[in-house]
């Protein structure tokens, strides 16, 4: 009872301070009145009695102060007073406060936003039992990303024969799309996942209501298998959280299925980025899929399990390599592909979810984390130098306070309170920035091409939850300490010694000025690192978009048609597509029209082994050639140069099969001799194709790859699923309305599918690089601005301090030019010092940046290209930017210095 009481009383003193003060005042007054009345009764005059009574009290204000400081929580009172004072100080200098808060907010916000992604993608544990013990199986085909994708029969073998996992569960490697009709809605398309019977139990997942799928629902052919579990969000969206959902019938692809349970809100599966609402026992697959891929063992599942106690990942991996061997041998035999011999098997931690997204974004996020770390450091240094400059300007005030009896610690506490207040404001704004920033980042990531098997766009659940907010608080505290310590120390050192008379001792001031200059030098150095990094990444991105593509991505429009409701058969689709070409080409603004089975950098594609008479290679060197099936004018439309021979022609239809190859293919198989007229066959086919043309190398399905050996076959000789590709003479999207009406008039039963531009498609494939370039450019510009602010602050302060000196100089004949030169020299001196430190650091950081870019490329490409990373140009750009910033920042102080009126300056002292 005492403690709450005490707290309440402390709080009352703070919150209802006025009434508490009034109360105290009244009480003192009553005391004096009563004491005076007694004295008057003893015969004293009213004035004398009153005076004696006040003396008796020991002074009204003194007693009040003793009451105040004797109370519990008096310190809280002091803090409140410090905060009030700090608030007043901040409000008095709104410009200064705004700059400091914005600086801190950008530093803290950037860090928090990036960290929230790191937390979501890399750190946060799945809501499962013992996430630390959870691992996934992965295999890696040479130069492919790692995959957790195994045939069902292999999963069963792993599950039954291993000695290293306490449980091993499986779920569909990719969610399926099901047509679902609910009791009062649908049909709608819903993503669903099959799971093994032990899935929910082994992962320790609990239902929100009902029960989850267990072994009893997992007997193939059993009527009890016709069940499903739905996720919380789906329950909310479709059933409004009605508990009567249990036992409800859903019709899934024409099969009636009963809902038996709902998962908890935090459950989304094991793969971040997708959240399929429907979870069904794998035993249901044979009823839903015709033909069933479960029964023939080819249904693909992701395999996850808990390591047994005492078993290490290495031991588990060793056993799995043995167990996985038969599968790899089978794959090699089936595809005649010896590359499978070099495939590797791994066991990786899965406590934070499956690895696909982590593999893809980890290095990008780490790099960004490093960049924002530097930015935070820079912001701290910047704020420190601003606070220092101001505390120097406030020395008179500090000295007055010391002279009036404030203790040294009291003054320091005041300075620290101000730093803390600014950090809190900055942190608050930073979290707000981070909230929008993180969502913007998620949207940008969603705009990229999803990894194979992931939905488009990715659903990444970023929350500013406790760990993230704790991180933001940590960042704010770091900046407080870094930026607040210097001015506090300054106050500590100078406050007690500075009597009013001593202000501005030359030696002391010089020392602090030198320190302030050191801070600006540090800012220049840090921002050179960020700026040169930004220049490097932006340059790299431009290179990726343009260098060695082998086609022109600008002004190209892509359209897919949805024939599913047209009732056309394959031949009709082919014929109609060919007819469409002329119509599309006639649309105003369209320069040429073609179609192709795949367009560049779409992420998909196909390959085949080819056989050429008289050409032999060792089985290890055997690679598939990449395939495309294209209509005439494909190369003209895409801007891929013709090297030799002729293009496909409509007249090839019905004639002997022809093919066009790229230079890489021609060089590999035919060396220096001409491939024109030569023939080849695809593995497993008898009919030869004759090579009629050679085109330049063009990148195939990924910009990070070197152009593979490529064979183009003629779409007029077969094929039926194409994307139309148009080169336009105006912005590509502007021809769309006209194009829609042409398509609608010609093919009224055909719906228009996706319309995109080739440039968008290329951009979607280089999302990590775009993200890096965009963010690093943003951070670089921020850094340059911080330096400008820091430099401006220091120069402005210096000019103010040196007004006398400048006045004297002008008085004895210095010209405006001399004065400007003086200011510029000191600005450029600082920048040069910063560059001396920053440039070597930037060059060193460059190698790290190059490694990251290589990792990013390797995570997506088979044979990653290496774009030259020029170490000099980005640094040179950063240096020039810094000099420009220095000149801009010194403009105003230099002008002010030039306009110093010598008479006024001299009189001032």
């Amino acid at each position, binding site marked *: 009872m005492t403690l709450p009481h005490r707290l309440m009383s402390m709080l009352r003193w703070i919150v209802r301070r006025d009434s508490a003060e009034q109360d105290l005042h009244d009480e003192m007054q009553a005391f004096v009145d009563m004491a005076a*009345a007694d004295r008057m009764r003893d015969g004293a005059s009213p004035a004398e009695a009153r005076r004696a009574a006040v003396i008796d009290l020991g*002074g009204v204000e003194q007693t009040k102060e003793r009451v105040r400081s004797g109370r519990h929580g008096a310190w809280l009172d002091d803090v409140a007073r410090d905060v009030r004072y700090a608030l007043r100080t901040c409000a008095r200098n709104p410009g200064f406060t705004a700059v400091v808060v914005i600086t801190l907010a950008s530093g803290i916000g950037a860090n928090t936003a990036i960290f929230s992604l790191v937390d979501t993608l890399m750190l946060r544990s799945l809501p499962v039992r013992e996430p630390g013990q959870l691992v996934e199986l992965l295999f890696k085909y040479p130069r492919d990303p790692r995959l957790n994708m195994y045939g069902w029969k292999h999963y069963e073998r792993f599950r039954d024969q291993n000695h290293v996992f306490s449980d091993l569960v499986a779920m569909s490697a990719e969610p399926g799309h099901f047509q679902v009709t609910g009791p009062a809605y649908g049909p709608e398309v819903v993503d669903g996942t099959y799971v093994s019977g032990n899935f929910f139990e082994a992962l320790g997942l609990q239902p929100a209501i009902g029960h989850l799928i267990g072994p009893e629902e997992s007997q193939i052919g059993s009527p009890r298998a016709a069940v499903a579990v739905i996720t919380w969000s789906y329950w909310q969206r479709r059933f409004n959280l009605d508990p009567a959902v249990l036992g409800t019938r859903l019709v899934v692809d024409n099969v009636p299925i009963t809902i038996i349970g709902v998962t908890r809100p935090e459950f989304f599966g094991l793969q971040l980025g997708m959240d399929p609402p429907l979870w069904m026992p794998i035993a249901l697959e044979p009823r839903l899929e015709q033909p069933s891929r479960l029964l023939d063992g080819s249904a693909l599942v992701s395999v996850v399990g808990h390591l047994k106690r005492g078993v290490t990942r290495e031991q588990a991996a060793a056993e799995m390599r043995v167990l996985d061997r038969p599968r790899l041998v089978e794959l090699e035999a089936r595809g005649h592909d010896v590359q499978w011999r070099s495939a590797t098997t791994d066991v990786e931690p899965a406590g934070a979810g499956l690895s696909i997204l982590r593999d893809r974004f980890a290095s990008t996020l780490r790099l960004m984390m490093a960049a924002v770390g530097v930015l935070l450091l820079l912001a701290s240094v910047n704020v420190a130098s601003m606070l220092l400059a101001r505390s120097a300007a406030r020395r008179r005030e500090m000295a007055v306070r010391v002279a009036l009896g404030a203790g040294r610690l009291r003054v320091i506490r005041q300075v620290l309170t101000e730093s803390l207040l600014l950090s809190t404001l900055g942190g608050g704004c930073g979290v707000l920035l981070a909230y929008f920033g993180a969502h913007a980042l998620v949207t940008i990531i969603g705009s990229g091409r999803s990894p194979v098997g992931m939905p488009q766009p990715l659903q990444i659940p970023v929350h500013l939850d406790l760990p993230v907010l704790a991180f933001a608080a940590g960042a704010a505290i770091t900046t407080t300490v870094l930026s607040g310590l210097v001015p506090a120390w300054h106050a500590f050192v100078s406050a007690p010694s500075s009597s009013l008379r001593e202000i501005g001792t030359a030696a002391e001031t010089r020392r602090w000025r030198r320190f302030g200059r050191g801070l600006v030098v540090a800012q220049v150095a840090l921002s050179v690192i960020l700026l040169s990094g930004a220049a490097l990444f932006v340059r790299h991105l431009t290179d990726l978009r343009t260098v060695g593509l082998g086609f022109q991505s600008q002004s190209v429009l892509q359209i897919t048609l949805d024939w599913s409701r047209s009732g056309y058969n394959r031949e009709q689709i082919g014929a109609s597509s060919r007819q469409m070409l002329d119509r599309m080409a006639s649309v105003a603004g369209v320069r040429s029209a073609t179609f192709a089975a795949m367009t560049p950098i779409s992420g998909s594609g196909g390959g085949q082994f080819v056989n050429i008479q008289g050409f032999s290679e060792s089985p290890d060197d055997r690679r598939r050639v990449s395939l495309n099936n294209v209509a005439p004018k494909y190369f003209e439309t895409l801007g891929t140069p013709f090297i030799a021979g002729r293009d496909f022609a409509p007249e090839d239809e019905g004639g002997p099969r022809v093919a066009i190859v790229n230079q890489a293919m021609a060089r590999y198989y035919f060396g220096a001799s001409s491939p024109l007229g030569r023939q080849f066959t695809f593995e497993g086919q008898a009919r030869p194709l004759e090579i009629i043309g050679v085109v330049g190398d063009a990148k195939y399905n990924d910009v990070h790859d070197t152009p593979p050996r490529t064979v183009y076959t003629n779409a007029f000789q077969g094929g039926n699923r194409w994307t139309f590709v148009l080169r336009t003479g105006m912005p590509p999207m502007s021809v769309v309305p006209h194009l829609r009406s042409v398509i609608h008039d010609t093919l009224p039963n055909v719906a228009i599918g996706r319309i995109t531009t080739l440039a968008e498609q290329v951009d979607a494939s280089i999302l990590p690089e775009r993200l890096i370039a965009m963010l690093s450019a943003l951070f670089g510009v921020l850094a340059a601005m911080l330096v400008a602010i820091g430099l401006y602050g220091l120069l402005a302060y210096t000019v103010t301090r040196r007004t006398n000196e400048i006045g004297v100089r002008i008085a004895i004949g210095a010209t405006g030019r001399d004065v400007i030169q003086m200011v510029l020299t000191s600005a450029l001196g600082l920048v040069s010092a910063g560059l001396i430190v920053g440039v070597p650091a930037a060059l060193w950081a460059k190698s790290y940046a190059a490694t990251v870019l290589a990792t990013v490329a390797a995570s997506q490409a088979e044979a990653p290209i290496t774009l030259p990373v020029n170490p000099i140009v980005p640094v040179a750009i950063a240096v020039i930017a810094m000099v420009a910033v220095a000149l801009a920042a010194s403009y105003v102080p230099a002008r002010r210095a030039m306009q110093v009126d010598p008479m006024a300056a001299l009189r001032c002292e």
Partner: protein
Amino acid sequence: MEKLDIPQGTLDLMILTILVREPMHGYGISQRLAVLSHDQFHVNPGSLFPSLYRLEQDGKLKAEWRATANNRRAKYYRLTASGRRQLERHRARWNRVSFAVTSVLEGA
């Protein structure tokens, strides 16, 4: 004769003792203290009021504004149940201390 300073730590005990009879205001407490101590103790209001505020914060006292006999307004303090218990504890301890001190002095 010069007045005595109040021994360290006994002011609270005296305040509680005075207030156990009836609620009283600050000036009254200081007057009563002088009377009860035969004018030996003089309590400085600069010590009295901080003690009163702290005891109130601790929940030993409760304060309210009331009219005095002379029709002035004054802040009256009264003992709470917790204050009563505190008084008993302190008094028991004081009795032991004073007995012990007296014993030592007489034995010497």
